[in-house]
């Protein structure tokens, strides 16, 4: 492939007897923010480590821009990754932390100062990283990921420990980088963190992809086409709606539940039958609902995978 993508192809991975990845299979395209969600232990971190060449898969492969990570000459110019913000030598300054990474990629000291400026750490760059707050460490980790100006960026749980201001900054940063045409993969175990930011989500559980779709499509598909009607005469309304072939039933003395026809048609039918009604509400699922629906069968396996515990 000429365009940068991240491809994960049928990756299997065991840790001892525990199956961490069970045919993980998805592609991350450029120009949009892709959320990578699933309960703890679903295999998100393991997948990211396989993409980054840190863990060797038992079978299958992961490609970055059509190449295995271990074939990249200056990998951080292709993929920037934030895997663990706590991974710092406490006695080394933030600037020197970025400097050794820059040296390994043949990048200049100037680039180090640029990314420090970008993440807002310029003024504290010469302080020991051991004294940084969790949020500052996240910013430093993001600076490291951006160092090589890579076309693909992978972030494993980047919002952990960030203050609300930081989370907003982070969302804007990732969105703008997606707009520039980069591949952005952001993992989280909380779907709510991805709301308003992700264009696309890959939902995983037990080492497999459960859903891989646009956010809008997922919501539409998950929303049962249920319409709720407020009326003082529910039994008349039910019989009028059943007459046109809809499934309707009385929920309580003021409420009818209808499915099988759209809200627009419900209004038409009730008006024609002269049934008085107060409100017609089309129920729509939230991203959180979608996620809970998809993963309800998976959460009980939390903790048995063991791969999150390895962090």
């Amino acid at each position: 492939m000429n365009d940068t993508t991240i491809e994960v192809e049928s990756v299997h991975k065991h840790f001892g007897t525990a199956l961490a990845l069970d045919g993980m299979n998805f592609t991350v395209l450029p120009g949009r923010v892709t959320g990578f969600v699933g309960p703890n232990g679903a295999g998100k971190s393991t997948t990211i480590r396989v993409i980054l060449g840190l863990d060797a898969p038992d079978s299958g492969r992961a490609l970055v821009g059509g190449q295995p990570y271990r074939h990249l000459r200056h990998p951080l110019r292709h993929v920037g990754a934030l895997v663990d913000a706590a991974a710092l030598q406490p006695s080394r300054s933030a600037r020197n932390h970025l400097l050794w990474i820059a040296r390994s990629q043949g990048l200049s000291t100037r680039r180090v100062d640029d990314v420090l400026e970008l993440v807002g750490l310029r003024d504290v760059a010469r302080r020991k990283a051991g004294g940084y707050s969790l949020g500052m460490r996240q910013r430093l980790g993001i600076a490291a990921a951006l160092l090589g100006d890579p076309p693909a960026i992978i972030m494993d749980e980047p919002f952990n420990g960030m203050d609300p201001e930081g989370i907003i900054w982070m969302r804007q940063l990732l969105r703008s980088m997606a707009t520039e045409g980069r591949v952005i993969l952001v993992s989280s175990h909380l779907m709510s963190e991805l709301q308003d930011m992700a264009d696309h989500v890959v939902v995983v559980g037990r080492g497999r992809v459960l859903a891989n779709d646009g956010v809008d499509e997922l919501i539409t598909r998950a929303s049962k086409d249920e319409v709720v009607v407020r009326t003082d005469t529910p039994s008349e309304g039910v019989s009028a709606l059943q007459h046109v072939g809809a499934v309707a039933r009385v929920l309580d003395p003021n409420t009818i539940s209808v499915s099988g026809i759209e809200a627009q048609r419900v209004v038409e039918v009730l008006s024609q039958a002269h049934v008085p009604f107060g409100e017609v509400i089309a129920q729509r699922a939230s991203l959180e609902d979608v996620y809970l629906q998809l993963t309800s069968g998976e959460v009980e396996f939390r903790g048995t995978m063991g791969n999150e515990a390895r962090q």
Partner: protein
Amino acid sequence: MNTSNTPSMPPNEVGRGSFIPVLRSEWTKFRTVRGWGIGVLAAVLLCVGFTFLVANGNNEGGCTGPPAPGSGPNSPGSNCYVGHPFVPIGPNGEAVADSYSYVHHRLTGNGTVTVQVTSLTGVISTSPASEAPSLTRTKPGLAQWAKAGILLTSSAKQGSPYAAVMATGGHGVNWQYNYTHDQSGLPGAVTNSSPRWLRLTRNGNTLVGYDSTNGTTWLEIGTARLAGLPATVNIGLFVTSPVTFQSTSGGAPTAATATFDHITMNGRATVADWKSTSVGSGPRDYYPTLGASTTRRPDNGVVLSGSGDISLAVNPLAGGDDASSIVWFGLLVALIMIIVIATMFITVEYRRGLIRTTFTATHRRGFVLSTKAIIIGVVAFVVGTLGSAAGVALGEHALKNNGNFIFPANTFTVTRVIFGSGALVGVSAVAVLAIATILRKSASAVTAGIVVFVLPYVIGSIATGGVGTWLFRLTPAAGFDVLGTLPRSTLVNFPQTMANGYYPLAPWAGLAVLCAYAALALAMAFFVLRRRDA
């Protein structure tokens, strides 16, 4: 945004990666942790400091009897002295033994001396170590390297160039010159029924030794060319008999008595007017002797008793210090510091999870390990070299000030000890880095480093018997063999043990053993690193 507008795969960016950026990266890592820099500096200073302290702790001096009233040390008439007994220095700068009985005459120009040796017998001192040896407490016995024969020497000064043909206690007839050269002649012991004839000729600077069983058929044993030999030299008969270590580890002085007959110089019977001296048996001379005597015999004969040796000086007798005897402790301390730093260089990354950042930046894990090995190896080499160079310089100064004898070592040997110290610390550091890579935990890796690289030295230097010797041959402690400076001689029977400062392996062989361990550890670390998930 400070980023480009059209991100895509950088061109020509697929490849195996190059080594130099990784080296620069790892060097940046190393130099940006201040504690490691301080540790490295401390290692050098501790090495220098402890070397100086060990050297400064050595003081020499003593009395050979009650001091004469009203006289200070080293003044005429005093039996007390400050400093080490006198150790002569040979023509090539080496410490030598040069003590013997001598009945001699001057020889100007070319000439030949011939003599018949009809007996060679000896006694061994039985005095306890607390008493001065004397001829009154001896038992019969002839040292292997008891010597009796013809000696030509450029001057009576100890350490002068010489050549000699001699009958020996257990090595037959030998031709020796300038303390280290030896060639064998007729085998067998000298007895009345089987005497030996010896002959030494001078022709310019060329000296030749012969032997014969009958005085008519002569065999040449060897030739020596002594450059710069003066026109007039001393030539004569000598007897000497070295300290034996056969029954006591401290050594027992011996004396030998030889009977010489039919002495001729340039074909003319002579000996009556020859002078008799005892060389190197004064109160300040280091070599233990049992006394000397000369008895003239009729028919150009002489019975000569003597004690001492003409050979390389060896440490159990000369009792000197050398670079390795003072630098070892400082080096051990520096090594422990370096073991800790080498361990931290990798284990901190594992503890903090930083290793994943390292391996995403450089997926060629072998590069990461080899660049770390180069950096810690070079740093440790510099630590060992600087610490040893400054420590030995300061330490030898202290030794001299305190009146100690320093075994002379040539520039090559001193250079080898200094850079060898660096190599010892450097190679150990690389091996410890490899072990730490395998173990990943600071505490266990530091423990392993000390157990493998420090403990064998400590055990080896206090163990008695063969254990220490084998530890310095087979374990990583063999690396310390690179410190050996004392010259060995096959012409002296003495215990060449660790306790006397003689390391069991040749310097480079010892270092090679250490390198083999480091190579093994590195190979295992490369293997594990390649196989393991990060």
